[in-house]
């Protein structure tokens, strides 16, 4: 085809296109980018290498801990376990719905944290305390700390206090539960404070996160419990 004719035909086509464009529907058939993701087969190997590096990093990051971190985790497992015993009493001791919800949340939260702390210790080849609860009796097996060691931790209830709590009913239980749980939580906050003021401690990301979460959650809960306690006490006066 001679160039002239070709050009003409092109101009005709262009005009037609213009006409159709001017009046066509707005239906837009965009050339959708069907090619997704940058994980094409080409960098499969790359990904495998990355994955290997990832797990190596995770493993080596677990080696950045001190004796203080281990002591904190080991101790806090026992500390949390006593909160489980206390909270477990709520349904049968006629606690108010408010206190029962609180107790249920404490059980849920502290059980999970116990599991996390056990994993933390296991991952670092440290002795892992196993918790056994039999009524009011707490037994911790498998870690270097004996029963009396646990009982000496900040905020722990004495066995006498535990029995007292287990014998309280209804409103009396609510009051005593809140009072003792505040004491117990304050002990946990003290333990965190002690940890963070130890040289070299909490450089480990997980330990930092766990101790900070425990600190914040328990302070929040202490405040809530103080408020509940005051409400109950003021009702009592009326």
């Amino acid at each position: 085809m001679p160039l002239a004719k070709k050009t003409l035909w092109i101009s005709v086509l262009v005009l037609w296109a213009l006409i159709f464009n001017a009046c066509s529907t707005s239906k837009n058939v965009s050339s959708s980018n069907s090619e997704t993701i940058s994980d094409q087969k080409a960098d499969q190997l790359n990904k495998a290498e990355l994955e290997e590096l990832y797990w190596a990093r995770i493993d080596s990051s677990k080696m950045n801990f001190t004796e203080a971190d281990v002591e904190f985790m080991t101790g806090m497992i026992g500390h949390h376990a006593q909160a489980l015993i206390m909270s477990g009493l709520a349904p049968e001791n006629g606690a108010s719905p408010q206190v029962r919800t609180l107790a249920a949340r404490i059980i849920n939260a502290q059980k999970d944290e116990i599991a996390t702390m056990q994993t933390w210790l296991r991952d670092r080849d440290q002795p892992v305390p196993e918790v056994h609860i039999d009524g009011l009796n707490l037994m911790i097996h498998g870690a270097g700390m004996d029963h009396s060691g646990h009982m000496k931790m900040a905020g722990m209830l004495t066995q006498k206090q535990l029995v007292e709590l287990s014998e309280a009913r209804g409103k009396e239980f609510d009051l005593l539960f809140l009072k003792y749980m505040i004491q117990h939580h304050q002990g946990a906050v003290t333990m965190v404070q002690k940890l963070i003021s130890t040289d070299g401690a909490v450089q480990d990301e997980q330990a930092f996160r766990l101790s900070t979460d425990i600190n914040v959650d328990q302070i929040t809960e202490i405040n809530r419990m103080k408020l509940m306690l005051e409400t109950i006490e003021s009702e009592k006066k009326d």
Partner: protein
Amino acid sequence: MKKNIQINKKPAFSLWIFLLAGALLSFSCSSTEQMMDIEYTSPNVSSLSNVEAPSPDPRVGLGAGLFDAEEAIWNLKKLSSTPPPKDFLGVTNSDLAFKENYAIQGNYNGVVVWDISDPSNPVLVKDYLCPASQSDVSVYGNLMFVSGEGYSGRLDCGTEGVQTAVSAERLRGIRIFDITNIEEPEYIANVQTCRGSHTHSVLKDPNDDENVYVYVSGSAGVRPEEELSGCVNMSPDEDPNSALFRIEVIKVPLSNPEAAAIVSSPRIFENLEEPPSHGLAPADKQAMEEAKANGAFTFEFGGSERVMSNGFAMRMLNVLIEERGGTAGEPTAADTTALRERATAMVNEMFGGGGDDSGRKGPNQCHDITLYPEIGLAGGACEGYGLLLDISDPANPTRIDAVADSNFSYWHSATFSNDGKKVLFTDEWGGGGQPKCRESDPMEWGANAIFTIENGKMKFQEYYKMPAPQTSQENCVAHNGSLIPVPGREIMVQSWYQGGISVFDWTDPNNPVEIAFQDYGPVAADQMANGGSWSVYWYNGAIVSSEIARGLDIFELEANPYITQNEIDAANSVKLDYLNAQGQPKFVWPHTFALSKAYVDQLERNKELDNTTVEMARQSLANAEAANPKVRKKILTELADKMDGMASGNEKVKMLTESVRGLASNQ
């Protein structure tokens, strides 16, 4: 040139062609009156009261893997998935900020800058190694702000951590970078704070173009006084200088950001809970008398007499010594007498008059504060409370309202509706490292709570929690998200850690509904490995997720009966120059055909217009879009006039009318 000459050789032929074309043109587009209706496609639209989500939920039972986990996705399309740069791999990816075409991703090892001009292929621009958790990031102009909270962050960005409990090398607070050249951020300043910075929010006050303000929330332990002078870990009752019960406000002069400094530490929690006052017990009174007898300083604060701690008394004495030009640390008898006389006045002057702030039982810090400067409000998520703050005076935020909720464990963050009439708070139960989306975990715990704001008071409406149960190998709880600017609706995209990404509509605050999601299987099958989406935000059409373990994921919405393509196009007509999700921008929609069509789709979905009217509106909009500007204006004006007659108090019809008129006036 050559072409023209050749064409001119056959004038008759080319003239014929042009005439033919002209005839065709006038045939198809001539008169409006007899204009043929343009074909259009009606989108598939369904009511939100009857959402057909995939069943059984494909998010349940997904196979584990780091880069090869099974994945479930609904009404979203994944555009890219990019692993972290090597030095950042295996270290937590955290929050996101956006500037121009860049996504800035925090990581506990520093900051990663991505060019996301092509969302299907993000390009690494800079990986800046400077460890500190959580590396929460924000931008303003040429500045970038990064949070440091953990004990191992260093002033020199070193990776070796800080091995002593008290150290001059530790950074806990805000790092400031100049990102004029984003490929080479320049570390220009830092502001140390007593509790470090877990998160922060940048406030650009509409009335102040010379400064920005950074609100710092810290939740970790208070630094020892020996590390950062003035940090006090006692309750404010014991020492009014306490680092607890307050946030920090940093003022950053834009012309001299190196001079950034704390300008106030508002105690926005003051008097939050006013327990019944019991006064001093007899034993306390006796202790007070003994303390006085032993020479302790006392002062009146919050309605009762208190004993001043020795450290605080010494600081007060030094203030007095300084006043008379003496040597700090060497008080004379006259100084101690002066302090006894002036203690109460000095304390009250220092701490905002004191007032009756006895017995602080409220929160002592915020986790995060979302600032919405255009409406002058902020939502503070502060331990056991959600606060509504007035931020019209940026350095002095004041609390307007506070709500508590027994189902909420730990208030984490806030998102306002675009009109500021609703606010959504999240509850990061368990701190984000725990699996709180198991079948047995209540749907009210670790969820969002939606409030309406009426006359400055927040009123609870409903909870929303990502509905697919997750395994105990997956950390999962409500986390960061942002609005997607679909006009006329509140649609939010939100991270749930390993619970994935959930897109939900909360236009009706009593009935939040999920309309899209994405979820990976666990990072590891046999252990709880930290992972999942930390933050996911909409930015100029892209839905960008910071995946804790896997890197950067980018999605876009796919049209579906619950969000039509018109609604997506209208959302994407909003263009932001930058985004910090905790400094919420007010969305303004340009008048586009997509906007008007989106409203029509919504009117059909909510059955607020009958089908005939919906079709009429769609036909008119299609005709107008195809017409030339003059005709277009006429069609649009006619449509707006017709709609005016039908509005009869319906807000959405009014919005449609307004958008059509706006479109007409643009012609």
